[in-house]
Structures are given as structure tokens and as C-alpha cells.
């Protein structure tokens, strides 16, 4: 309960385990501490508080490089999409949404939720069970939900002038929305306080059930109603139906958005590790902070402070 360092660090993780490295912001500066000078704050740490997991230099570099590439890719996509490529013969400037919308949808519907499903299964599989997979699934779902909302919003912006309505009960829109609701349920379940292992198992089952449901939902709404145009890139032959600079911009958009996803995933995973650390050390931290009040320069004794509070 107090620490899960052994289960949280599988071989492939970008965030290393818990080396007792030097000062860390979370411990160094408790938000409401009356002790402000660094030497006094450093004295807080040894009193039974595990230092937070530090990020290794390599993983920090990876994160920054991917972040920079994602930024460059996104800027290049925006530049190509808004200024370089020509407007469409039929759809005019509206066609420029095509550089964003399919890429966002690809990340949300396939990459993020696929990764979440695979990590959840790997967590449930006894031989690969590690909190790493649980945190990865959680990070993927959270980022995926953001991309899913972006998919629906960008689709709506395109749909209003093209179909004349913000929302159509088309098969793909409907299944995307159902997917969003399913994974919002997953996130709601994760917010319920529980032991990390219990929460991980519960969440993994819910992700698994949702993943099983997706093909069934897909077929059912497909039979129910269809209006959306066929896939442009991911059609069976994988042959591009658009040409020249537009095709390149579209592909660049896919790459850039995938990089954005990976970067967000890495950051969210790291935050997840810190959250778990905080959850298991919150009490110790608060106690250390409380006890340190006894060493205040004004000389009040700890017992009298507690009595007043």
C-alpha cells in the first residue's frame, strides 16, 4: 500500500524506478509550509517520506525530443494545410479540415483505445501483470478521450456546412460517440478511490468489456444508419484517393498527431506515477510538515501548535 515501486517499473518503461536522488520540487516546497529557506525545507525529507520517483535523463530527453518533433510536425501541418495547399474544387476551404480530422480520429479510435485495450489485457494476464500496463492504459484512455472529443468537434464543424447539421445520427458518428461514453465510464471508475491493484483490475475488466463491445456496436450502428463518406486513407487497398500536396499534408498530419499523442501519453504516464506516489505518501508528507512546525524559528513547541490547531 505504501509503495508500488517494484510493480511499477517493467523493462520497457520510460520512467525509472525510485532512486533516492536529490531534491525534488514536491518535497522541497510544500505549498503551505511556513518554512521557506531551502536548508530548513531539506530537513523535512528524512522523516520517513519516500522520495518521489525521479525521471531518468534518458526518458526526459526522449520526452523532449518527441515533444519538439510533435510541435514541429503540427506547425508544419498547419502551415501546409492553411497556406500551401489549394482549396478544394467542391468543398473550398472546408477541405482543410481533412488534414486534421482523420488524423485525430486515427489517434482516438485506433491508437489510443487499441493501446488501452491491449495494455488492459496484458495487465489481466497473470504473467505480464504490472502496474505499468495499468498506468499505460489509463494514460492512453485519458489522452484518447481528448482526441475523441476533438474528432467529434472537428467532424461537427465539417458537418454543419456539408450536411447542414451539427450532428447526424450516422453510423460512424454514433459509434464514435458510444466509444467516448464507454471510456468516460472507464475514467469515472478510475476516479473511485481504491487500492492501486484493485483499481487496476477493475479498470482493466471495464476496458476489456468495452473493447469487446466496440465491434458489436460498430456493426449494429452500421446496419442502423450510414451517411459518412468512406475512409480516405484507411480504405482496404490503402490507396490514397487524393493527390499531390494535399496527400502529403494529410500524411504529415497523421504523423504529427501521432507524435502529439505519444508525447501526451509519456507526460500523462509520468504524472500517473507521481499521482500514485503522492497518494501513498500524502499522510507521511503531511505528518512531516506538521512535525517540522516544531523547528520553526519562533520556537513554539509541536504540542502547543497542535493544541492550537
Amino acid at each position, binding site marked *: 500500500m505504501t509503495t508500488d515501486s517494484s510493480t511499477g517499473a517493467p523493462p520497457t518503461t520510460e520512467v525509472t524506478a525510485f532512486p533516492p536522488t536529490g531534491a525534488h520540487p514536491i518535497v522541497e516546497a510544500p505549498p503551505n509550509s511556513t518554512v521557506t529557506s531551502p536548508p530548513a525545507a531539506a530537513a523535512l525529507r528524512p522523516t520517513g517520506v519516500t522520495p518521489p520517483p525521479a525521471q531518468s535523463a534518458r526518458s526526459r530527453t526522449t520526452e523532449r525530443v518527441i515533444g519538439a518533433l510533435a510541435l514541429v510536425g503540427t506547425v508544419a501541418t498547419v502551415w501546409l494545410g492553411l497556406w500551401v495547399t489549394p482549396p478544394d474544387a467542391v468543398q473550398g476551404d472546408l477541405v482543410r479540415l481533412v488534414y486534421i480530422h482523420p488524423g485525430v480520429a486515427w489517434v482516438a479510435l485506433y491508437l489510443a483505445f487499441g493501446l488501452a485495450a491491449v495494455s488492459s489485457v496484458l495487465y489481466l494476464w497473470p504473467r505480464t501483470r504490472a502496474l505499468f500496463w495499468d498506468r499505460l492504459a489509463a494514460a492512453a484512455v485519458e489522452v484518447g478521450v481528448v482526441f475523441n472529443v476533438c474528432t467529434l468537434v472537428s467532424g461537427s464543424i465539417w458537418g454543419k456546412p456539408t450536411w447542414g447539421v451539427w450532428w447526424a445520427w450516422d453510423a460512424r458518428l454514433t459509434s464514435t460517440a458510444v466509444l467516448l461514453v464507454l471510456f468516460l465510464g472507464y475514467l469515472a471508475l478510475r476516479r473511485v478511490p481504491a487500492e492501486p491493484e484493485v483499481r487496476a483490475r477493475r479498470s482493466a475488466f471495464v476496458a476489456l468489456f468495452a473493447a469487446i*463491445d466496440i465491434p458489436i456496436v460498430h456493426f449494429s450502428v452500421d446496419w442502423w444508419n450510414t451517411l459518412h463518406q468512406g475512409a480516405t486513407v484507411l480504405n482496404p487497398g490503402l490507396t490514397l484517393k487524393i493527390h499531390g500536396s494535399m496527400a502529403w499534408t494529410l500524411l504529415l498530419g497523421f504523423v504529427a498527431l501521432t507524435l502529439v499523442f505519444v508525447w501526451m501519453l509519456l507526460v500523462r504516464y509520468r504524472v500517473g506515477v507521481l499521482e500514485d506516489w503522492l497518494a501513498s505518501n500524502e499522510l507521511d508528507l503531511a505528518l512531516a510538515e506538521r512535525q517540522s512546525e516544531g523547528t520553526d524559528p519562533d520556537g513554539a513547541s509541536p504540542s502547543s501548535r497542535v493544541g492550537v490547531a
Partner: protein
Amino acid sequence: MWRDAALVAGKDLRIEGRSRVALSQVAPFGVVALALFAFALGPDRDVMAKGAPGLFWVAVLFCTVLAVQRSVSVESADGARDGLRLSGIDPSGLFLGKLAGVAAQLVVLEALLAAGVVLLYGARIEVPWLIVVSCLLGTIGLAATGTLYGALSAGLRVRETLLPFLLLPIVAPVLLAGTRIWQAAMAGGTPATGTQWLRLLVVFDVVYVAVGILLFGPIQETA
């Protein structure tokens, strides 16, 4: 496994027979829901008859949530859940038993709601067997998913609010299929579209019953 399932289902139905919660609370709630749908649509019977298939299934879904909540809550007092696990009952049998208990109550509720839809909304059913088969298949799917999510949320203090949110999107295909089959049954003629949707229901049932039989043991450990 089957003997254990019969034991558990018998126990749940006996509790229901003595407490009459489903009969005296869930069934009247379903009828109230039908009346509210009618108020929402206005007194035009044509509109009501047109909406009858969907409204029937939405009412069934709401009742499913209540029936599942009840099925979970009978195990929550006096450490009954731990007792069940200690009793040596096969987890798959336990799953099938809880499923059967919920399903049996749902079938009675559906019969009542179907009668209500026919009487109150003036829905005319041309192909009755299609309705019966779809209700049975749909009920198995609803009870299977409901039992799974009920077990997952059993230990949660926020169960009442979380369960509908988790369960209802999952069973969306049952609502779609059930509604389309009702529409086919009301339209009469050759129920070709109906059988396509029946296949979907069968797939849904097989998938979730299989998942439950395989995973109910590990799922119970999460509670």
C-alpha cells in the same frame, strides 16, 4: 457448474418471492415509465405506436439497471458475497445463476411491459414469435452484461450512480437490435431484417456469457 447455477438462481428467486421487490417496485416503475413516455409524446396514438418498439426497450433497460442493483444488493449485506465465495460454488455457476435470476425477473417484466405497449400505445404485432425470440435473446444479453458489471461494482460505495453509466452504453446494441426486430414484427411480411438483428443478439449473448463464464472468478476478487 449447472447445479451450482440452479442453486444460486433458486436462492435469488426465493428471495424475490419473499421480498417481492421486483414485483412491487420495479414492475410499477416500468409502467410509470411507459406512462411518462406517453406524456412526453402527446396523446397521438400513431406517434406512440411508431415509437412503441424503442420505448419498450428503453423501459426494459431502465428496469434492467434496477434488477441488477437489486441482484447485487442481496449479496452486499451480512458478508453474503464472501459466504458465496467460501461455499465452494463454482464461479461460472455463480455467474450463470445470478444471470438466470435476473433474466427470469426481466422476462416477467418484459411480458408486462409488452402488454402495456400493446394496450396503452396501440402497437399492433403482426409476427409474435419474433417478439418472443428477441425478448428472450435480449434478456440473456442484458442479464449477462448486468451481472458482470454488477459484480465489478459490487464493492463500490458509488455503485448506484456508476452502474447505469457503465452498463447502458454497453447494451446499446441490444436496444438497437431489439427495436429493429420489434419494428419488423410490427410491419409484418417477411421478417428478413429481423433475422439479421437476431443474429447480432445471438453474437452479443454468446460473447458476454462466455466472458462471464471465463472471468467471473477473477472479477469477484476485485470487489
